[in-house]
């Protein structure tokens, strides 16, 4: 245990408080006057003003498409294998046009489990998944909406980000497997 330092002997003006208090008050008042005149704060007025994110910021995942419109992912299972949080669930299917190639029938990421490590992006041999959306408002009213489905992640960069819940309610085909509009009944 560190011994407490011996008290510094105070000069007369310091021990009478008054001068030191007035010095402190002068300092705080200088801040008030500066801020009243300049109105220049570091604070970001969040919903209206947003902080620009850096290029390497890892936001919500998106899935990429080939130029011909098919999904790039070949369901090689590299990302669920490398995922330390076990949040990626892929159901693979065969492409009837090209039996040599697989594709994901469903590709769900549980954003409640995701730790945003970016290993899935690094592991992907086809550059099919990226985290470059810079979206950090990943939220929903229930747990099911926090599972991002394949269709949702494909459409993520088209225009504005659709709110997960709203998108699922409007278009049920976007919803992940097992999704019901109502909140699950807890036992």
């Amino acid at each position, binding site marked *: 245990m560190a011994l407490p330092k011996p008290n510094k002997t105070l000069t007369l003006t310091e021990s009478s*408080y*008054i001068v030191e*208090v007035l010095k*402190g*008050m002068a*300092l*705080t*008042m200088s*801040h*008030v006057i500066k*801020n*009243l005149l300049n*109105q220049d*704060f*570091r*604070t970001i*007025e969040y919903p*209206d*003003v947003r902080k620009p994110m850096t290029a390497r910021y890892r936001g919500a995942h998106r899935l990429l498409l080939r130029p011909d419109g098919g999904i790039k992912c070949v369901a090689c299972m590299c990302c669920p294998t490398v995922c330390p949080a076990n949040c990626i669930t892929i159901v693979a299917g065969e492409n009837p046009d090209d039996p040599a190639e697989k594709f994901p029938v469903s590709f769900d990421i549980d954003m409640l489990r995701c730790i945003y490590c970016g290993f899935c992006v690094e592991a992907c041999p086809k550059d099919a998944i990226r985290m470059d959306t810079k979206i950090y408002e990943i939220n929903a009213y229930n747990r099911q909406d926090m599972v991002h489905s394949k269709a949702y992640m494909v459409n993520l960069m088209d225009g504005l980000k659709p709110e997960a819940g709203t998108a699922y309610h409007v278009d049920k085909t976007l919803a992940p497997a097992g999704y019901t509009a109502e909140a699950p009944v807890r036992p």
Partner: protein
Amino acid sequence: MSEFWTDFLIVIARCVFSVAFVMNIVPLLIWGERKGAAYIQDRPGPNRAPIDLPNPLDVPRLLGAVMAGQPLVYKPIVSLRAAGLIHTLTDVVKLAFKEDVTPDHVEKFYWFIAPVIAMTISLCTFAVVPFGDQLLGVHLQVSDLDGGLLFVLALTSLGVYGIMLAGWSSNNKFSLLGGLRSSAQMVSYELSMGLAAVVVFLMAGSVSLSKIVEMQQQPLDLGFIAIPAMNWTALSPFGFLAFLLFWVSAFAETNRTPFDLPEGEAELVGGYHTEYSSFRFALFFMAEYANMIVASAVTATLFFGGYAVPFLDGATIRANADVILAVLGFGAVPAFTTFAVIAFKRQTRPFYQVLAAEDPRRNEPKFWTGLWLGAAAAHGGLGVLGLMGGLAALSTWASLPELGGDLVAAVLHVSSLGAKVLIGCWIMIWVRWTVPRMRYDQLMNLGWKYMLPVALVNVFLAAGWIILRHELFA
């Protein structure tokens, strides 16, 4: 109307005015505290809660919707945020509608009356503070007690009951410690507060607050020149020391930082109001600010001339009512125009550039520009009225010769007291966000070992000086 009912109505009006005076400054202070703290800490502070005003042309349709019981849906043209003042309003609504929890373990009766006592005492103290000399023969003071200042000291001692009862009846060790600290602290600092006030008694020769203010409205005699209406107690050497002691004691009495040990949140959770929620908490919260206002008002009355306007005594104001109205009216025009220019310039702030084109918040600077320009025009109108002798004409028309002068005097006196109170409250807020909380033993050392002896010596020196001056010069 009979004599009795006239008197009754006058008494009621005076009481309502004094309560309204305190209760209207309270939300302003809460806003000032939040905004002041923010500016001291380089933050913008509260600025988001808006009031969305509809287009005036839309009002008839909206009234129809209200009458028909339909939901009120409109597209606002201006979203009024008023630099965060609306937050106070929303806070009140929140506190009023929150669940009022009464814990099982509290001592019910005392627990219920504790916040009421705290609030009532702080409002009662204002009863003896004069906020003007007279308006048409009516004293602008709820009660001109002969022992006015003694009443103030007595009530501040009673004020400790609210906190002590809250702390004890909460049946909670943190609350109890808060209540204990508060009572010990208030008892200690009451001594130096009373002794500081004794100097004022000696100088004024009375404890009636209205007499003390009258004394301070005399000219300040510097030997070679006499400054009118500036005989403030704080401008004499012993009076100034007494003011310092009184002011520091007032901090301790109102439980403000650096003496806010009763609610030291780092040690005591919330202190004496830990168990209170909803509007009972709001009562304690408002009582703290009401106490600040009363302490500032009493300090202003004792040491800074109370309602007295610097350099203008009551007789001068009444004799030159129209001139003063013209000067003040025209003097306010450039001030309000400056505000309008500042408000207009705020449109160029980066925040307004990122808002969508149809966002009603974009119109807020324009709204304030219009409002300040309107205020400037209204004050210009007052100035013209004063220049044309409007008050004299009003007095003749109402066949009350004193009316015009009394009106100007009353408005000036109340504003003068209000300005002094606001300055005092701002100093309290300013100190709170500057000085850290004292340790309990430091607090007691300061009270008993330094302030009490200094106050005692000050009383004796002041008494000696007054006698000496009386013997030498009178």
